């Protein structure tokens, strides 16, 4: 960075690398690493489903879900610059809280509704009736 750029940055309100726990910034390298990982993590599940390389659908679904979870973490770290230090750890705290809420809501809804479907709506097979 040139001196001129530094002065410009200082004039713009000192939006540099403050150690006061502000929002984190990315670098060209981190963006490119994140992009490369994202391309691989997107291409592999699409390829798996489109070609049907693995015949077992449940195994394919499991791999696709794991790759999606990894890609979400990659985006969080490399694009949203998630770390434990930014804003003195409060962004991480907010995210952990949200993840807990999301997990409770998703697993709870799916679990309860699945059991409702299984237990409350029996399929009457009239041919078996006496």
């Amino acid at each position, binding site marked *: 960075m040139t001196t001129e750029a530094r002065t410009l940055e200082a004039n713009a309100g000192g939006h540099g690398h403050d150690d006061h726990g502000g929002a984190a910034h990315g670098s060209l390298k981190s963006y490119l690493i994140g992009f490369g990982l*994202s391309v691989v993590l997107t291409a592999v599940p699409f390829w798996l489903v489109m070609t049907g390389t693995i015949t077992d659908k449940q195994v394919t679904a499991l791999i696709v879900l794991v790759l999606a979870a990894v890609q979400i973490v990659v985006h969080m770290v490399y694009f949203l610059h998630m770390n434990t230090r930014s804003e003195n750890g409060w962004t991480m705290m907010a995210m952990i809280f949200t993840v807990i809420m999301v997990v409770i809501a998703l697993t709870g809804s799916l679990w309860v509704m699945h059991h409702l479907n299984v237990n409350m709506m029996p399929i009457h097979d009239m041919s078996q009736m006496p």
Partner: protein
Amino acid sequence: MTVATVSTQSSEPVFHVIDEHAHPEGASTMLGFWIYLMSDCLIFAMLFATYGVLGGNYAAGPAPKDLFDLKLVALNTTMLLLSSITYGFAMLTMEKSKIGATQAWLAITGLFGLAFLGIELTEFAHMIHEGATPQRSAFLSSFFTLVGTHGLHVTFGLVWLVTLMVQTARFGLTEANRRRLMCLSMFWHFLDVVWIGVFTFVYLLGMLR
């Protein structure tokens, strides 16, 4: 501001600073916007849960295999991923105070976002033309609500992007404009994160169902 004079003797009165120390303008904007994004995340979680519950109820109508074209979805995903990295480049050039390059990267991001929306609307129009309207089955209702809400977010992101490009053109990369561009950056990358959930849960797992 009140000045504290702390005495060691208990008989002396003790003074504390009661005023909160001054924060620079916009110091808490990033944290506040992050908390907004987390609440938005909860909205999408509810819509995903709804789709998870209702996604198998076709009402003897079309199923994901009859409707989805994975090549189109892959193209759409590419558009959104490319728009994410170009927004990243816009942020990098913004930090170097290169206003022209920042505007150019923002414009490219906008075009990729527009391409994403165009492809999505083409897909929707095709589905509705085939009779797969939101009214057809619970699966289609929850599908259009989830994917439509994401598309609506991208639309508002584009409106915001154009607004900030005009702001930057008129007033330059001021401290306020930098802060706004950083908020939109988080919003844009967040939408890409949500899209990972959409193409995985709705499209890929839908084709495997």
